[in-house]
Structures are given as C-alpha cells and as structure tokens.
C-alpha cells in the first residue's frame, strides 16, 4: 500500500506487518498521552515525587537519553570534522536517534516542570550563573540543529525528491552540514557538561558536590566524557538491533569496529578520570563538607557495590572488550559491550539523580525512598514508544543506512 514511499531497492516488510509492529507501541503511546494529560491538567500530585524527591524518574530519563543521544553530535564530529568517512554509513541513523532522544527529553521536561507555560521566562530573564540556564539554552538550540539535520534525510524520500525545489534545498542543506556538525559539537559539549555541572555545583549536597576547574566542577567534564564515550556505543547498539529486527545487513562490520574502537578508548579515559575523581571526592571534597564518606554507601540499596558496578563492570569491562581487536571482530561481543556501556552511563545518571536526593543531609533524618507512580512510568514509556515509532517510520521511508542497498546484493 505504501510501496511508492518506501526506499528504492530496500527490503521492507508488508504494510500489514509494519502496522502490526507499530500497534503495541501506539498503545503504549496512548497510555502515555493519558498520563501526560493527567499531569498537565491535575498537576504533579499525580506523581510520587515530593519535597524531598524533587527530581525523580523523569530527570533520570532526561539525563540518560541525552547522554545516549550524544552519538548524534559525536558521530557528526568524527565524520565532518575529523573526516572519518566510514561513519557516513550510520550518520543519518545517529541524527534520527539524537533527535528522538533530545525531543523526548524536552517533552518530558515540559511535563516535569510545574508551570510549563513559563518555560520562556528562562530566555527572558535568565540567571547566567545557573547550569540549568545553560542546559536550557543549549538543548533548545541543539534540538533545532538536529531538526535541521533531520530535514535533508526526510527530503531525500522517494516521493519528496520529485519536488525540484526540495531537491535543491536538500543539496544546499547538505553543503552546510559540516557547519551544523561543528555548531552541534560546540553546543553538545557545553550542555552535556552542564548537565553534570547541575549536580557538581550543589554545595549543599556533599554526595554530588565536586571541586573543579574554574567555574566547572569535575562532573562537567565527566559527563562530557561519558556521553561521547557511550554515544557511539549506543549508535552501534541501535544499528545492530535494527539490523536484527529488520533481518537486513545495514552496515559493514568495519563500521561497527570503528564505533567500538572510539567508544573503547574514550571509555578508558573516562574510567581513569572517574576513578581519580572518586578518590579525590571521597578523601578530600566530602570530608571538607563535614561528611564521613562511608555514609554515602551506608544506606541500602545504594551500597558501595554501586561504585564497583558503575566504574568496573559497566565501564572498564566494556572498554576492554571494545579495545580488543579480537573481540571487535565478533558482533555479539560488541553488542554485549554496548549494552554494558549504555547501562553504565544510565547508572551514573541514576546515581547522580536519585542517590543524591535519597541521602539524608541532617544527622537526625531518615534515608528516604521513592518509587515512581504509574503516571510517571507511562510518561517514560511514552518517550520509548515515540522513539520506536518515529525511528520505524524513518527506517521504512528514509535512507538511514546508505550502505544497505549495496550490502543486499551479497
């Protein structure tokens, strides 16, 4: 039915099968719309957040998807600035994933704030000392950049190409792509960092507070490093999942290997800096705030095992797999390492968001727990469903993997 729209020369399932695939995701999205509606109309009392857990599942989601979405800017940086042409095979897919991650995060933020209609206030009377101001500015501009980067991919659709002015426009956009990639890289470095800075500057929260360089706490640099290290791994992971689900070879193995190599070495650097940062924080920064660092890990389930899992199992282990030339030849190893690395960055963001708020600051206060309400979970699932649906449509009708047609000949 939709054959004229489908990518020329690409193998895609029947319309019926495609709709069947979309149906459960659409149902999930409908549930999410209901939950979002309840939160917007009735207020945030629909969530299980409270005065102590001012941030919850949604802020964790925002931080995690923005870190994973870093694959878009970093792949663009490697391709257009460092001229790693092999990555042209995944750049379109990376841009779509980045767009999904960032737009999903912005959508959830709009539900998460108490007065979404006042979002423009940040632009009208910004507090230039706030990391959140920087995050808001950069994410808004970068989402616009991602939308502009997405546009030529859409305009290259079989039917849209027939409009000559679209074709010309797409060609012009393509010429400025390196500029957009440079702008995207600049913006992304800052907001990824500022997301880490959000927590690192919290002088009143010794668990999150870090010393730093000039106005930037170490978490600023650690968030950049962890995002650029995990971004390529997430591009690898999504590409392999799409390849598996669609039953199609999408890229040459050498592309996976390059993504893995980049992720691996960056993860090594990240794990090194993170370890040094942890030692300095536990031995100098936290004690200076009058805190015995052992209390950070005295409350279950956040025992010191979290540090081991985050830094070693979900950091060092995938890094070692990625940098091993032998392991890199095996896709299952690469997928395993990508899953571990993605979980690693998510764990880091969970710890910074939830553990920071759960730990008592007063000596006489209890450790507090929080469990999201169904409305929070459904909103979370909405972003997942939205992502899957938008990606599925893009994969079906747009050229996300330029090597696909060529690889099908074999």
């Amino acid at each position, binding site marked *: 039915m939709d054959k004229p729209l489908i990518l020329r020369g690409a193998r895609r399932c029947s319309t019926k099968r495609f709709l069947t695939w979309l149906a459960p995701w659409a149902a999930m999205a409908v549930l999410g719309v209901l939950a979002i509606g309840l939160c917007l109309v009735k207020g945030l009392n629909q969530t299980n957040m409270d005065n102590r857990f001012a941030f919850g599942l949604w802020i964790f989601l925002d931080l995690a998807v923005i870190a994973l979405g870093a694959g878009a800017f970093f792949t663009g940086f490697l391709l257009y600035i460092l001229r790693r042409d092999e990555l042209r095979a995944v750049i379109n897919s990376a841009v779509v994933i980045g767009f999904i991650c960032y737009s999903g995060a912005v959508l959830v933020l709009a539900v*998460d704030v108490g*007065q979404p209609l006042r979002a423009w206030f940040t632009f009208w009377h910004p507090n230039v000392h706030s990391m*959140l101001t920087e995050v808001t500015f950069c994410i808004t501009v970068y989402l616009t950049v991602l939308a502009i980067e997405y546009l030529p991919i859409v305009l290259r659709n079989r039917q849209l190409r027939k409009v000559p002015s679209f074709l010309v426009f797409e060609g012009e956009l393509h010429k400025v792509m390196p500029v957009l990639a440079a702008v995207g890289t600049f913006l992304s470095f800052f907001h990824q960092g500022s997301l880490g800075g959000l927590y690192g500057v919290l002088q*009143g929260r010794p668990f999150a507070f870090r010393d730093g360089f000039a106005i930037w706490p170490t978490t600023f640099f650690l968030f950049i490093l962890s995002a650029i290290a995990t971004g390529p791994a997430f591009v690898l992971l999504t590409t392999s999942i799409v390849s598996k689900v669609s039953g199609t070879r999408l890229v040459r193995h050498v592309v996976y290997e390059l993504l893995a190599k980049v992720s691996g070495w960056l993860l090594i650097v990240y794990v090194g800096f993170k370890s040094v940062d942890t030692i300095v924080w536990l031995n100098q920064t936290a004690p200076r705030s*009058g805190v015995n660092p052992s209390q950070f890990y005295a409350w279950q389930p956040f025992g010191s095992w979290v540090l081991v899992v985050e830094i070693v199992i979900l950091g060092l282990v995938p890094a070692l797999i990625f940098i091993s030339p032998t392991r890199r030849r095996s896709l299952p190893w690469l997928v395993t390492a990508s899953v571990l690395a993605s979980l690693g960055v998510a764990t880091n963001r969970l710890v910074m968001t939830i553990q920071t708020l759960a730990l008592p600051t*007063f*000596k006489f*206060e209890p450790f507090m727990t929080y469990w999201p309400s169904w409305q929070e979970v459904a909103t979370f699932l909405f972003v997942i469903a939205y992502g899957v649906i938008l990606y599925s449509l893009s994969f079906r009708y747009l050229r996300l993997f330029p090597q696909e047609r060529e690889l099908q000949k074999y």
Partner: protein
Amino acid sequence: MESAETTLARYGMVIDLDRCNGCGACATACAVENNVPPANTSATERTGLTWLRVQRVSNGRQFPQNRAVYIPISCQQCGEHTPCVSVCPQNAVDVNPETGVVSQVPARCLGCRYCMAACPFHARYFNWFDPKWPDGMEATLNPDVSIRMRGVVEKCNFCHGRWQAAKAKAAANGARDIDPADYVPACVDACPEKAITFGNLDDPRSDAARASKSANAFRFLEKLGTDPKVYYRSDRAWVRRLADADVTARESEASRG
C-alpha cells in the same frame, strides 16, 4: 556599609532549643501569616507546605536516659554561596541586599524544583496541589501576602510582608531606618516560650547578634559553607552535636546509649 537611603541589615534569628517545647505555635502562626493553604486531603508529610516545621529528635537512649529536643526548621537564609539562588534558571530566587533575606518570587518560578534539590535544609516546598481554602476561610487571608499557585516553589522569607509594612511605617514617619520593634516575624511573635530571638545580626546592639555569638550557639551543617543566618543554641552537648552532617556519628552515639 550604607546605601543612600537605608542602612543595610543582615537579619537572622537564634532559636533556643532548650526553651522550645514543641508546641507548634510558630508553625501555625507562620502558615496563617503567609497564607499557606490547608493541606490537601491527598497530601502527605512529604508533599505538604510547611515553611516552618518542628522536628522531634531523640538522643537515641533508652528510658530513663531518653531525652528529646524539638527543632524548628525553616529556610536557614544562607548568606554565602546561597545554594538556591545560584541554581535558579530564571532569577526566581532573590536576595534582598537591604535585609539579606532570601526570597522566592513565585510569579516567576518555573517549578523546575532545582532549588529544592540544592537546599540541604529541605526548607523549600513545592505546590503539588491547587491551593484551596474552605468556604468562608478566605476572609482570614492576609492581604499583605500574595497566595501562590500550583506548580511553584515557596518558602520562609522571614515574613517579608512585615518588613515592608515596617518600612512603610518608617517612611510615613519620615525615618530613614525601621524601628526594630516593628519588624518581627510571626513565629517569633507567637512563641510562648520566647525561644526565638530575631534581629539584625550586623547590629551589635541587637539581641539576636549577641545571642548568635553566645556560648553554645551553633548552626546546622555549617561545614557546607553556606553561612546560614538561623542560629540555634542549647546547653546540652548531644543537641549541639546534631548540627554536623556526620550520620555515622549518630549511629555510634545511639549504640553507646
């Protein structure tokens, strides 16, 4: 340091924990003065609006050594690196240079709650519900304090409405500075034990300045470096030890008891 018109002050308070009997009059007076709505029926102790909460803390020992202290906790009016001021993305948290009072501007608040995450004293409250007063109770609202809407953050501001009224009175009398007796927060007024002393901490003649420098005066979480302007005092050593943030010390003390 003086401005062209008024003397700059640094208001603060000293709460004598040995006098506080936990009656809660301060918290009630605070809510009435500042138009804090009655708690929503679905609200919990973690979703309420308690600008001033009175916390009961035990020394952790068994009878007959068991002792308790009641600690009124409101915004500690940090003076240095004020955690909530620097983080707010849209300047909705303001420090009045004339008083040193940290105020929330609810009309500008986005409700992002970053300030709440930043505050180590958990003294900031989010309006999780629409504010509602039972029929007829609107008549008790204080006309000098604006009510807040759902979705914004609020907190203690040392009854800033009373400071403005005192300023207006001074201006009407042709005076440059306010009479200290005209600016007293509602909690201070209401305390039957006179446990709270309020005043300009920079004025050596004020009772609050003297009390803040007295022996056994202390501030909570002082090592965080936020320079709170709310002091506490107690002659009991175990109460003073509650001030630091070392949770592990609490456990060893409890086990000793």
